[in-house]
């Protein structure tokens, strides 16, 4: 019987691998357009100059991030070039402190500390600092963390400039659309 011949299964292995690889390449090309800066799901870095919201959209049946009117960060208006440099610096600081080995970004990372996907919009900051002071408040926390409940973040000795770059990164990231993750964000603020 042909199934007893290894060559039959070899042909199955080669053809399935090649076919699936080809499909992956096609989907990758398409996906990279969507997730590029300025693509349909990922805003340009100067979104840090604007107010960001993340709320349930009945039309899309999921939580959607939106950029609204102007809401400056650290009291200044960044040009696209400046914003890009600041957010890039933020990523460098995030990697240098291995943030991802305690926290998660879009749910990826370690599971020891809170997810940071919408940290900029978290009620713990947004309810107390709805306006322009939020950036400074989170910057101060990142530089000198205080205990929140059971957990306390270590002091990783960020300079003010480093901490501001991290905050800019978190603000930009909160505006990325992620198919409704996390769902029900802020639904139960004081559980």
């Amino acid at each position, binding site marked *: 019987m042909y199934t007893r011949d290894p060559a039959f299964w070899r042909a199955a292995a080669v053809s399935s691998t090649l076919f699936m690889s080809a499909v992956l390449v096609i989907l990758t090309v398409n996906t990279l357009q969507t997730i590029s800066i300025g693509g349909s799901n990922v805003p340009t870095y100067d979104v840090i100059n604007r107010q960001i919201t993340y709320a349930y959209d009945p039309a899309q049946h999921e939580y959607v991030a939106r950029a609204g009117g102007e809401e400056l960060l650290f009291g200044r208006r960044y040009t696209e070039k400046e914003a890009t440099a600041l957010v890039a610096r933020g990523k460098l600081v995030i990697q240098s402190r291995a943030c991802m080995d305690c926290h998660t*970004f879009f749910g990826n990372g370690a599971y020891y500390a809170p997810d940071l996907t919408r940290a900029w919009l978290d009620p713990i900051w947004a309810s107390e600092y709805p306006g322009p002071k939020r950036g400074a408040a989170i910057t101060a926390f990142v530089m000198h963390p205080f205990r929140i409940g059971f957990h306390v973040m270590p002091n990783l000795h960020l300079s003010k400039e480093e901490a501001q770059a991290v905050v800019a990164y978190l603000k930009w990231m909160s505006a990325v659309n992620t198919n409704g993750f996390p769902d029900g964000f802020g639904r139960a603020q004081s559980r």
Partner: protein
Amino acid sequence: MYRSQRLALKYFAAAVVLFGVMTLFGLSSAFYFVHPTFLLNTFNFNTSKILHINTLVLWLLMGFFGSVYWFLPGETGREVEGIGAAEVLFWVFCVVIAVVAAVFIVVQYGPGTEFTLWFINQGRKYVEAPRWAAIAIVVVALVFAYNVIASTVKSRNYSGILMVLILDLIPLCVLYLDAFPRITNMSKDLFWWWWLVHLWVEATWEILIGCIMAWALMDLLGSSRRVVESWLYVEVALVLGTGILGLGHHYFWIGTPRYWLGVGGFFSALEPLPLLGMVIHAIYDAGVNHMQASNRPAFYWMLAEAFGNFIGAGVFGFMMTLPQINLYSHGTQWTASHGHFAFWGAYACGVITVIYLAVQKTRGCSRLDGRAWKWSFALLNLGMLGMVGALLVAGIDQAFFERALGGSTWSAFVALQHQPWYTEGMWARFLFGLVFTAGFAVLAYDLITLGRIRGVEEAEPVKAAAA
């Protein structure tokens, strides 16, 4: 014995040492969850976790390299080409690991500059090793690939297993190049990062361990090459046929288009199929051999590999992979439960199998059995199942209360830390970690002393295998 096989023994020894280091840092990482201020600002959780998961990758990689160096001369009937370079690079590999570990422990992190990424920490989960060390790993992998390819070409033995292995080495080396870039855009960063983490671990590693287990099956049970190679092809067809697009289950929530929810959900639901095939094959082999073999520990670890892979990677993976569930289970202890079980079943058990085969050959034991391996087998598997079960309880609690009901805020996260099911789960995980550690200690004792301090004759002879 071939020089290549002596090199394999060195790799196995290094792998077992790193297995031990991984276990200790796993234990310390587990302790932070029940005592969050443990060594705060001195030795933080992230450093402990980095050492835990990087030694995991490295001990398995060293186990794979050792296994291939062990079986390759038998397959090609000759010494491995370029064995001198491979021997030198083994020591380079060890020194690199020691230096990186020392820097992680002492320096831990650096300022937000490129210098930090080059020399201290790259800070991307699983690829924290600084770039200079990543370059060294690329060199080691390239020489390993040269060893396999050149030996195959010289021997002119283009067996199915060798051809699958050679083709697998290409993505194994190429995908690792993903360990270098710094991409500001988190969506793109994670998109490519999963090519490394998923396509390495859930595709190229699966094929690599498939080749190794094919050799192990022929060595241990005398299975026919024709059958083993057919199974290997079936496995490649199913693993890559489902796993390549199964990559999509990591592309649900990182900014990627909506079609990944369907693609990733569908193909990752099929991913258990090849693993089910392995279990069927293992049950068949166990029945044919009446649960007896000349090397009982290797035989039992091979069965553990088949079942662990199917349940840990297949069933536990499927359980949380559909997007409707993953929306809440993603990034919780549920993931950690699946991750522990999958790595254990898919790879760790397989590497231990080959190490026992090598111990039998090098210590001249015609039969291998005894009491110690049974204790280590029982303690390690009980410890692992306990940890996985505890993390599953904690993870489901987290998915419901922090994610679904609490809406994933910091407050919801803090509230979770007081949920009894979560805290009890974390304590249970730590305690079963102690059981696992005890199992490792017995395993190390058994591997070191078997056929040496305890003579071969002391190893209990197995009952005569039924014909």
